[in-house]
């Protein structure tokens, strides 16, 4: 027995993604200062999660696959944050 997803879910996912794309676009034309970056990243992350959950069938899959999906991102965050710890604190050195 193979689980097959209802087409409605795929269509809804696609619509959500295109709406988010439109949102990214529109927000870019408003000056929010530093929040432009935060909003853009937040929407990108949401899109990624939506694609992973519904197109990549993360929803309903095992916890092991969830872990594999998250691990890469976590490690990238380690790379970025510890490297930034150097760049951000260089100006502290007198």
């Amino acid at each position, binding site marked *: 027995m*193979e689980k097959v997803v209802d087409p409605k879910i*795929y269509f809804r996912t696609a619509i959500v993604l295109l709406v988010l794309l439109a949102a*990214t*676009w529109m927000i870019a034309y408003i000056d929010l200062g530093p929040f*432009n970056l935060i909003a853009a990243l937040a929407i990108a992350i949401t899109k990624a999660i939506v*694609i*992973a959950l519904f*197109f990549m069938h993360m929803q309903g899959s095992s916890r092991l696959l969830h872990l594999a999906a998250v691990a890469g991102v976590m490690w990238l965050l380690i*790379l970025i944050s510890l490297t930034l710890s150097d*760049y951000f604190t260089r100006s502290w050195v007198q």
Partner: protein
Amino acid sequence: MPILTWPVSEESALVHEQFDDIGQQREAAKLGMWIFLATEVLFFGGLFLSYTVYRFAYGHVFVEASRKLDVVIGGANTAVLLISSLLMAFAVRASKLDQRRMLTGLLLGTALLGCVFMSLKGVEYHKDYVDHLVPRMGFKWEGADPGNAELFYWIYFAMTGLHAIHVTVGIGILLVLALLAWRKTFSNGNHNTVEIAGLYWHFVDIVWCFLFPLLYLVGHR
């Protein structure tokens, strides 16, 4: 969430000799692909790191430089990939339902949209070249800090270039799968390969979802 089940004959599916049953084989393949995608996150990650470091260092110039990129093409390409992901998801569904024609068509459709993406990218790169935005190839920058601006464009071409290589590989895989699908390779429960390829294609889509705002929408326009 409504999910249909469809009885598929498991006995005729091909179980490789190292596995005990088809379920183990499919789970192993999925895990293998997800681990591979994690490696891809870190592969692109080196470039994301460079972007992050230099964006914080040279924020103003990055905003200026980003505004010169063609956001219409960039936005259109994002939509193209999102729709291609939709087609790919349906292709995976068709492979599970043993719908040979539908599967072949959807795989070809996804590949076609991939080609549309690459064509738009080609047009865009040409436009960037004409506008003197390509580092070391006639690069000209009118404003302050031309070095930093050139750095932004280096990163832009590196990240979108690496992504384009992945799209190209994906198109190649999809075309091969379409041929195999037409030859009934994925019937009778042998659909896991399509699902695995789907995971790769969706990942390529996800990377672009980050590249678009980070490169084209650095500051407000």
